[in-house]
């Protein structure tokens, strides 16, 4: 009976993951700084991981943990490539404002 999930219910974790994901989407939609956009993407990946782990707990299935570990590795790779692109863009354009990066538009 000392179990958190037993006392509290798994749906709290799932709802929290939805809220975190929504905050990440808001960050991607409404911020201009490319770095903050990347951080919002990290936030969304964390929310997805939280969901995966909550369902792994729900079904008592440790395969969800393996999936979460792979997601973390992919997120690290994504952050490395994304930050390299931001550095490259900053070097070429002297800013990292995604609204002013329109050279591919025309």
């Amino acid at each position, binding site marked *: *009976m*000392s*179990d*958190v*999930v*037993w*006392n*509290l*219910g*798994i*749906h*709290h*974790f*799932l*709802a929290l993951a939805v*809220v*975190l994901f*929504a905050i990440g989407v*808001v*960050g991607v*939609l*409404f*911020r*201009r700084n490319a*770095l*903050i956009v*990347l*951080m*919002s993407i*990290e*936030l969304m990946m*964390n929310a997805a*991981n*939280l969901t995966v782990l*909550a369902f*792994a*707990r*729900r*079904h*008592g299935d*440790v*395969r969800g*943990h*393996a999936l*979460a570990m*792979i997601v*973390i*590795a992919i*997120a*690290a*790779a994504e952050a*490395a*490539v994304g*930050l*390299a*692109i*931001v*550095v*490259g863009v900053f*070097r070429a354009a002297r800013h990292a404002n995604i609204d002013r990066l329109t050279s591919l538009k025309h």
Partner: protein
Amino acid sequence: MNPAPGPNAEAVFFWLIALLCVGGALATISRRNAVSAVMCLVGTLFATAVLYVMLYAHFIAIIQVLVYAGAVMVLFVFVVMILNKEEEEPWALRGVIGKGIAGAALVYFSGRLIGLLWRVPSPRGEPPPSFGTTRDIAHELFAGYLFPFEAVSLVLLIAVVGALVVAHPKHEAHRE
């Protein structure tokens, strides 16, 4: 986990951590200064790691702190140091109608999703003691998921090489 001191102590703890998580996330997307945004994100990641521990994912929580809150965030801090410029207008208000519709749709679908997930029944009782241990995850990873595991290592290698190629300043020196 230790026996609870009171009937609702863990619920209080969960709400505290959830508040920290959401507050950190909101601070991350609202800070004007990128360094403080990174710090708020680190706080959020630590709070998420605590939530993972609550879900009996001890190993993933440790990986989260080591890889995410450690390595990836150090990468972010370095990039912020390279290009530390505060924005004059941090919030994108161009195309405000489309973004308003997108925000409304986001709120609506989040509400629907929470309503759907709220009915997920909770598991009965505690998981087996081996649940979430390194041995259990390693067995799963190296027995059933060996190919994805190796593929991830290849993806990491390609990502590192790709990041070097993209961020290397040699091309620009040739152009100038």
